[in-house]
């Protein structure tokens, strides 16, 4: 099955990409394959026989905090990508025995979406060596093996050192950063006249909050202090093996909501959060994904993010699902989770 998925991903990246029917066939085959090999997914999907992409049972991502969803004995995992900084309590773990599909898809789609990316990279994301449980670090390390990683394993870096390094750059550079790390950099005085062709990748991470409210101010500041660098946006999740990208634009035109262009093997569906029923394109809803690159984990996931899938399949991301249930005096789920953390 892995070979079939790898071949499909390669074909998607080639000159004659397969169509939706081929995608659906591979997805349904992968679903059946995972049901046979993953006892947890089999229990979850029990009694359901999907006949279309939209019917593939999507596992709520929070389950990965409780249960290893793998098509191999969990102890054989060579990679344990962990979520961090959410309000959900214990981290979710995405276990992989191989990153072959992850690596093929990530590099291929990045090159397609950001074809003229510089080879020089300064990273405000920790290195894969210091943060082996970070899927983001894995991705940056994969795309830029020679990157200069500034943070330690906990993500701490010296902003003044970062400014000094950036100010000395004389060739186009790729700055890899999260929104929070960029804010930290911009909190400290400094500027760098980055040359034409430079790019700054900003990726989200909602950390239990709604979208960064002051993104426009942050982007305006970045536009003033990062020379001629353009913005590229990345959307990824620990539990997914594939990412969405926005094309390079001036910071003044950058929109943190996207739209993110997804690779053909990563399909987003917005559903009505109350009923779970898929919504037509253009409607805002709770996001589910089918990611064929999740070969040996679980291909269909339901997130707690809110977004709009556009008619061309690209994704506008709005943040965490808003609102809180009407309650009188009962504990909210988050309050209960916080108490349960004491276990």
């Amino acid at each position, binding site marked *: 099955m892995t070979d079939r998925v790898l071949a499909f991903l390669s074909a998607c990246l080639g000159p004659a990409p397969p169509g939706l029917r081929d995608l659906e066939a591979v997805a349904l085959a992968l679903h059946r394959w995972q049901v046979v090999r993953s006892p947890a997914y089999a229990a979850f999907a029990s009694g359901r026989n999907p006949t279309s992409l939209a019917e593939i049972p999507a596992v709520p991502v929070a389950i990965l905090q409780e249960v290893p969803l793998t098509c191999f004995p969990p102890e054989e995992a060579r990679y344990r990508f962990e979520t961090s900084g959410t309000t959900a309590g214990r981290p979710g773990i995405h276990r992989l025995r191989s990153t072959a599909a992850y690596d093929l898809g990530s590099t291929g789609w990045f090159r397609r979406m950001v074809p003229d990316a510089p080879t020089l990279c300064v990273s405000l994301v920790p290195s894969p060596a210091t943060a082996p449980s970070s899927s983001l670090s894995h991705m940056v390390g994969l795309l830029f093996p020679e990157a200069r990683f500034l943070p330690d394993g906990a993500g701490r870096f010296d902003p003044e050192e970062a400014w000094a390094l950036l100010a000395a750059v004389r060739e186009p550079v790729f700055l890899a950063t999260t929104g929070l790390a960029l804010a930290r950099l911009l909190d400290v005085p400094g500027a760098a006249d980055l040359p034409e062709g430079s790019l700054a990748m900003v990726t989200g991470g909602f950390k239990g909050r709604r979208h960064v409210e002051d993104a426009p101010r942050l982007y305006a500041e970045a536009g003033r202090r990062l020379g001629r660098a353009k913005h590229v946006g990345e959307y990824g999740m620990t539990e997914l093996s594939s990412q969405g990208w926005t094309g390079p634009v001036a910071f003044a035109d950058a929109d943190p909501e996207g739209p993110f262009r997804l690779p053909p093997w990563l399909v987003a569906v917005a559903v009505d959060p*109350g009923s779970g029923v898929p919504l037509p394109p253009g409607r805002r809803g709770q996001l589910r994904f089918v990611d064929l690159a999740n070969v040996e984990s679980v291909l269909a996931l339901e997130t707690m993010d809110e977004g709009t899938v556009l008619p061309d399949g690209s994704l506008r991301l709005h943040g965490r699902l808003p609102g809180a249930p*009407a309650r*009188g005096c009962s*504990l909210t789920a988050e309050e209960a989770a916080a108490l349960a953390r004491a276990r």
Partner: protein
Amino acid sequence: MRSPDLERRVLRAVARLAAAPDPWSLSDGLSVPMAAHCLDLACGLITPEALHAALAVPGVPPRSAAVVAARGVFTAPLEWVALLAGAGAEVVLKTPSTAPAFGRALAGAFSAEGLPVRCTTDRDLPDVDAIVAMGDDTSVAAIAAAHPRARLALHGHRTSLALVEAPDPEPVAAALALDALLFDGRGCFTPAAVLVLGPPGRAAALAEALGRTLPALRASLPLGDLDPLHGPAWRHRAALTRVLGALHGTDAPGAGAAGLLPADQLDLGVVPGFLAVHSVSSLAEVAGRLRPWHGHLAACATDLPDPSAVLAFGVERACGPGRLQTPPFGRAHGGREPLRPLCLHPSIEP
């Protein structure tokens, strides 16, 4: 403190409210049958005897009081307004601005009997002798901080559960299903989980029985407006149950289901219409499992021969299955008599 005339007027006001022509419009989104049933239940608890007994406390009652209601259980302010008005206080009822209908109807019913009760959605409370506040812990604490001189009864977020032996699962399931579904699971007396003491087969049998009774009862007490965020919570709980245990009942959020889950998955956040059932082997195990929630446990429904055994876990109220949502009028709140903390207790010294 007792005034037969005031008591009569309070009872007439409650009867007036109970006769509201359209309970649904007061209910903040419950279904028509659920709203009518819940209003009947809440009003029916205020009997002449219960009111008379609840007002029989020493001390000087407040001349003025505010009751701050939260969204959720729409009838929650009724007992407080009845008590305070019966004690002769002028009452301001602060209702949520997004759901003011019940507060207005309540104030209207009491005013029609000449009782000084008014409703407001204004966050700024007047200076009053006493305040009863319901809501999340942060809001309640803010109210307390803003009114340091008022006598306070504060009711932050709590949760409830059931601890049963259930040797015969069917009647226990029927009773717990009622507890779980009333008010669409919005209040602190909704059981979040059921612990079954004894051999594991008992928990499995009770989960199966609940999987039948919850959807069946839902047919007569239909779900109202389900907050969209309960959909993801339901799917998460159902998924966890499918993977780690056994799911019984329906798949639609809120429609009624039970899940048999290992005890280490105990979670006291309510998912409306869903009851998680866990097998426990001893009271010592229960004590250990509930330790993280100590101080946050409102009530426990139990069929243990000695119901007081559950008080050791820090719950404020023990009752039989099926009685969680119908606490006696004038009961202790947070372990305290309701009216006493709101009264002035002056000392007279020689």
